[in-house]
């Protein structure tokens, strides 16, 4: 899933599969340690059963799509549970509990056979579309089929394209079968049974069954790329009005039956969502009580933070959500003299990490990161191989490393950042200042965000030719999981010479080997240790300069009830929210 920032680059099939494999293992490994969000906000604020009122959301951008086949934002998956029922879902519960899977449209989690290559689900009886038509397994199959058509639904993830045994199947819209159900990889032996056949064993298939792609779609109502104008609901709310890119409203779905749904206790009678609202205005409205939820879940913007934290009454209504995201700067081992580990270490020693944190808004923006894995990820450990008082940097040690590197007087290189991001600009400038103390001189080079990875910093020959020794970047995981977080940024085998890479210059066969080892390690604790080892190896070899483990400052207006942060989405759980405003 995406957070509000598009951190993940273009994916490689192998990597996704690997990621999922491990994710699943985590899920099955029993309850992990309490999430980083449980300590401060594991409880429920304003618990309530009070029904009624209208919950008002606003989005500072546009939705990628409301179509369950075509959406890939964390907030969108969180929200989609209000109008659609996938086979399986993240539990609506606070903290680490919110990252566990529970059956939704299905009666139980998936039953696997054939060495986890075949997965079977039985649908609950009595579930209906908003028009009263009963939901059958064919509607789920059709939904997954259409989600495979990435030319029509480019935004959604490609998990099913990657794991299903497609036999060349591309899209129901190009399907000669009169019922458009020609995909052999999914069988529907009866109205309530659906069977998935995978290319190869995949023990974590329930995580895929959790994506909105398994929310049933009635073929008769499918209008392809126009379906997002009216998605047919199976959840507790249905779309009343929908003005694309402006706003939509939802009301209770009379066909939704609580008897078929143990997971949802919908409180408000209605929901409104305004789109493309000025971000500062969102914050203002939130604080003035004209709005209930800023839907992206990324927290209060910089200009409103002071007004939130400056008042005791408001400060009490905030939650700091730890996010599985790291803001960091890659040290490109392709570019001399950073091909020498000592020169890289010199950079790590010379860095003023407190300045890095300031660039991201200080403690509200996140904690100072001393290693790669964000603490919210199960099993992650904190350590600091380059300590300095108050994180201000150790210039003596830096100079020492420079001598060992053969550059006693320092050296010059370039630092790139995404031009549209003021925080990254501030980072580059802060680094320029702090490294200059050790004689390391940085030339600052901004590049456009849209093509940062494809054409500039993420293209090895460009980065080398332009002497990009330091590359400012950030990375978030789809789910809080170590392997999923690390593989795309440290595996040297995913680096493509044509560009589009998110591994910005970490090339170490030992790390690659450890990643492969983690894939086959079934014991959760042992696997978590491997991630920590990789983390440690990256830091020992000084391949990256960790900056900030991100946090979001969430504000909940006093009228909001049943508020909690779930580790599954690392933001408020939208299924649970209610309001006292009538």
């Amino acid at each position, binding site marked *: 899933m995406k957070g509000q920032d598009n951190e993940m680059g*273009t994916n490689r099939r192998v990597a996704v599969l690997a990621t999922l494999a491990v994710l699943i293992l985590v899920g099955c490994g029993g309850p992990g340690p309490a999430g980083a969000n449980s300590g401060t906000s594991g409880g429920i604020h304003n618990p309530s059963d009070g029904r009624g009122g209208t919950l008002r959301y606003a989005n500072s951008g546009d939705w990628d799509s409301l179509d369950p086949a075509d959406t890939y934002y964390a907030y969108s998956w969180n929200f989609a549970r209000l109008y659609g029922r996938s086979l399986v879902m993240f539990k609506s519960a606070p903290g680490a509990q919110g990252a566990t899977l529970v059956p939704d449209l299905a009666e139980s989690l998936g039953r696997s056979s054939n060495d986890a290559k075949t997965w079977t689900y039985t649908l609950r009886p009595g579930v209906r579309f908003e028009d009263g038509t009963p939901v059958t397994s064919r509607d789920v199959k059709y939904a997954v089929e259409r989600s495979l058509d*990435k*030319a029509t639904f480019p935004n959604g*993830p490609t998990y099913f394209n990657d794991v299903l045994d497609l036999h060349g199947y591309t899209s129901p*819209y190009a399907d000669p079968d009169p019922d458009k159900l020609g995909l052999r990889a999914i069988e529907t032996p009866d109205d309530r049974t659906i069977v998935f056949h995978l290319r190869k064993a995949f023990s974590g298939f329930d995580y895929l069954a959790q994506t909105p792609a398994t929310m049933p779609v009635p073929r008769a109502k499918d209008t392809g790329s126009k379906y997002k104008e009216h998605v047919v609901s199976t959840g507790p709310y249905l779309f009343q009005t929908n003005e694309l*890119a402006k706003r939509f409203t939802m009301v209770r779905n009379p066909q939704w039956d609580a008897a078929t749904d143990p997971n949802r206790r919908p409180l408000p009678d209605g929901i409104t969502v305004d789109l493309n609202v000025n971000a500062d*205005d969102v914050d203002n409205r939130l604080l003035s009580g004209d709005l209930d939820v800023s839907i992206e879940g990324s927290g209060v913007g910089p200009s409103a933070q002071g007004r939130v934290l400056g008042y005791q009454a408001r400060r009490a209504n905030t939650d700091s959500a730890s996010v599985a995201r790291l803001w960091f700067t890659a040290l490109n081992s392709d570019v001399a003299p950073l091909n020498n580990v000592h020169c890289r270490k010199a950079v790590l020693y010379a860095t003023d990490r407190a300045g890095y944190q300031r660039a991201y808004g200080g403690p509200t923006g996140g904690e100072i990161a001393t290693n790669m894995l964000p603490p919210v990820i199960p099993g992650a450990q904190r350590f600091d191989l380059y300590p300095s008082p108050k994180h201000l940097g150790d210039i003596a040690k830096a100079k020492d490393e420079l001598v060992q590197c053969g550059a006693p007087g320092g050296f010059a290189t370039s630092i790139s950042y995404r031009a549209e991001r003021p925080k990254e600009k501030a980072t580059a400038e802060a680094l320029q200042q702090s490294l200059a103390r050790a004689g390391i001189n940085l030339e600052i080079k901004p590049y456009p965000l*849209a093509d940062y990875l494809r054409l500039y910093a993420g293209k090895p020959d460009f980065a080398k030719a332009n002497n990009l020794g330091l590359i400012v970047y950030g990375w978030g995981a789809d789910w809080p999981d170590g392997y999923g977080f690390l593989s795309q940024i440290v595996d040297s085998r995913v680096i493509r010479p044509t560009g589009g890479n998110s591994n910005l210059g970490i090339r170490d066969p030992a790390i690659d080997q450890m990643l492969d080892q983690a894939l086959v390690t079934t014991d959760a604790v042992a696997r978590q240790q491997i991630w920590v080892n990789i983390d440690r190896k990256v830091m020992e070899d000084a391949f990256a300069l960790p900056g900030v483990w991100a946090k979001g400052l969430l504000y909940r207006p006093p009228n909001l009830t049943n508020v909690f942060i779930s580790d599954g989405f690392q933001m408020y759980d939208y299924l649970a929210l209610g309001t006292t405003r009538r």
Partner: protein
Amino acid sequence: MGIYIVRRMIAAVWLLLIVTAATFVVFFLVPRLAGATPDDLASRYAGRTASPEVIHQIAIKLGFTDPIWVQYGRFVKGLVLGADYSTGPTTVHCPAPCLGYSFLTQNPVLPDLLDRLPVTMSLAAGGALIWLLAGVSTGVISALHRGSVFDRAAMGVALAGVSLPIFFTGLLALSVFSYWLGITAPGGSYTPINENPLHWAYDLLLPWITLAFLYAAGYARLTRAGMLDTMGEDFIRTARAKGLPERTVVLRHGLRAALTPILTIFGIDLGLLLGGAILTESTYSLPGIGKYSVDAVVNNDLPKVLGVVLVGSMFIIVANLVVDLLYAVVDPRVRYQ
């Protein structure tokens, strides 16, 4: 007059062709010079986990694999004859003038634009009216009482108006008037005029004033200078010699003449208003062309960019034409040439 308008229209068509062609060149040629392949371009619209095959499929679907002039030809053809697009299960016809479908959201561009046009027009019309009235009257009073407290205060405020950015004045106004005092509509409010004209005006009042503030300042200064010049003219002395009351002298004789150059500037400003509208619409979250164009550019969404470019050029062309025609009405010396 008729021939004149027709000639202008033909020139306008040429201009639109050139402007859209230039947009194409910037969009396709510049990235290509930077080394981007059609697939690279397509990957912008392909979602994050798209495989190279999917990206290529999208490149073909969007037509990126064709030479640039073929793509441009297709765009012009769509404008003139319309075009067909696949939504997946069916094909829909996009009637002429078809501006195509967004690369990103796959929404048709023209209906979106037409849907948003009234918002921007409402914003522009109301804003322009207010800034004309406020700016010109302030300028007149300032000129007549040169050096007075009013004059100095007004010119000070005018200076602030030209130098303060819209998102600052806009958000400040929202905080104070909408959220604190609660007397104006909150951000994001818009009611179409045909639904409820009063509500329409109420919702747009603050955006109007914000937009007007920026321009009124300039007009106040311009009017003041123009009035000071005009009031020294011989015909003003004549008007006084006839015994006209000072009000008539100032408004019907002085202002009438001073307004002509202001009209020229007004035409230019109205044409370029899209710039101010972008900021105002973003600040107030109004669903107009301005906000749309920001999204279009940020997302590299060519069909939307082209649509906005067309509308923007049309704004300028029409505003200039209207001003030229108005000029002939206002200044008889132009009319009889």
